């Protein structure tokens, strides 16, 4: 017999238990107080205990309950997307919004199975200029548009 019958339920439970334990550990240093004079640690501790208890119950259901679909992770698109945003953050202050937006759009496009590099490049350039026009020039966001060494 399988040990974990419904991996979705089982791992979801574990995740919440982990969050609960983390909250309890961090909140350890916060004064609890009493019910009539609650300290900053009172309510977080209740929530942390609830998360651990109910999360454990959820995991138990995942082991004993009805069988579910196996879990399938597709990390590649997610990581490409998140990496493109991370690069955007790092590049904006260094090379300006237009270049950073182009990089974001180009790399994010690569997450799709229908990636076409020429199309993505053009889309990135257009969106970079549009974003600078709309967000910086029209709405006044404090972001550099051009690389600083261009004198922009």
């Amino acid at each position, binding site marked *: 017999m399988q040990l974990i019958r419904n991996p*979705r*339920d089982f*791992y*979801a*439970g574990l*995740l*919440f238990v982990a*969050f609960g334990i983390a*909250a309890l550990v961090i*909140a350890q240093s*916060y*004064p609890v107080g*009493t*019910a*009539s*004079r*609650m300290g*900053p640690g009172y*309510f*977080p501790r209740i*929530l942390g205990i*609830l*998360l651990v208890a*109910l*999360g454990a119950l*959820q995991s138990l*259901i995942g082991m004993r309950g009805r069988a579910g679909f196996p*879990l399938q*992770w*597709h990390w590649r*698109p*997610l990581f490409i*997307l*998140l990496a*493109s*945003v*991370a690069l*955007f*953050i790092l590049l*904006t202050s260094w090379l300006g919004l237009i270049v950073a*937006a182009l990089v*974001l*759009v180009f790399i*994010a*496009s690569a*997450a*799709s*199975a*229908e*990636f*076409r590099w020429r199309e*993505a490049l053009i*889309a990135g350039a257009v*969106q970079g200029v549009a*974003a600078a026009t709309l*967000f910086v020039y029209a*709405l006044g*966001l*404090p*972001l550099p548009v051009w690389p600083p060494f261009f004198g922009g």
Partner: protein
Amino acid sequence: MELFDNLLLGLSIAVTPVNLLYAFVGCVVGTLIGVLPGIGPVATIAMLLPITYGLEPVTALIMLAGIYYGASYGGSTTAILVNLPGEMSSVITVLDGHQMARQGRAGAALCVAALGSFLAGTVATMVIAAFAPPLAELALKFDAAEYFSLMVLGLVSAIALAHGSVLKAVLMTILGLLLGMVGTDVNSGMARFTFDRPELIDGIGFVAMTMGLFAFAEIAVNLERTAGPGVIADRISSLWITWKEFKQSFPAALRGTAVGTMLGILPGGGATLSAFASYTLEKKLAKDPSRFGRGAIEGVAGPESANNAGAQISFVPMLTLGIPSNAVMALMVGALIIHDIQPGPQIMTKTPELFWGLIASMWVGNAILVILNLPLIGLWVKLLSVPYRILYPLILLCCSIGAFSANNNMFDVWVAIGFGFLGYIFLKLGCEPAPLLLGYILGPMLEENLRRALVLSRGDYTVFFTRPISATMLLMALGLLILMIMPTIRAKRETVFQES
């Protein structure tokens, strides 16, 4: 009549050029994202929230509300023409609406959907105007204990009506409450869960969190499905409906409006649930239920009216009690707080122009939507031919800049990345993100009221059960929880959501 005075005050505010312009912008943006599958009102409103900082609060809310109900209009267009719901609330419209389109009656279906929604919007505006003031008056008598119990009831009913597993929704809500604790504790001034980051002193960036959970994670999940929507409808012949169709659909639209008005007030209810309930009702009432699923016009008129009525009525608990009933309303509360307006019953007395202006603008907005939708339908349909591979990088870029603009800080964009990662895991594990957002918004309020109630009762927990209104609400919450755990109800609830 006070009712008409109030509505007139509201109308005078809603039709000022600036407010009219932003209502129009909201409706256009709402229709746009409603038509496009893969981006919903939650992510859009979060994205545009920072842009509204410079506006008057009422103008900002008018625009954001326009996005919300505009999306439900746009969503039905996609449902009818492409056999794909643009929004959750139009899932049910796909069944009969697309069948009608296949039989060459797309025009009639679109017309009924738009007019039914307009009818529902008009009635809902009247109902809000009539019932919101007494509700707010009642709420003014509430003390901390009542507020605490009301919030518990709100959270429990949001859980009851969420999709998927009840226990997971409970866990997501609790985690949301905990995330709401991040930042400075108002009573002791102590920084909680901030990891010594100055950016977290005011709490986790609300916009950034929503972006990560609702936009980044959604895109990642969408990219896993290889086949995108490819079917584009044929030309639309006539937008007019026949007399016979009118006679069939008018009573259905009225019934749908009634259903939406009643269910919309429930926390967690709103548009989607109303549409489902209305469809079930129409099927039960029909002389020949077998027509449903094969292009019955009542199956479009009823749910489309219901989802619009439900969407609008769900503003009532938010505006009168300060309690959001769904993720969009949670964002609205966020918008109010950003504009330094404390959500709750005092909104109506302290800032009547905001309250009535928003209500009246909904009616104005519905009229704009009818004008916008019927003649311009061809334009919206063209939008559907933009492939997703072009669209999602654009959404990602707008969200990244949007997350930055909330506090003009790149830290928030990192937060969005973090929540994008977490959100993907949640979606994969079958955990809906909406309850987390509700918990996050209600967390600080819940803690504050619990604390105040217990200070007044000197630490005696029975205070929640000795005060009658509070006890009633807690018992209702308990009853709901028991109902959900009972096996027969659980099976029924699952089949209802299975149909989507």
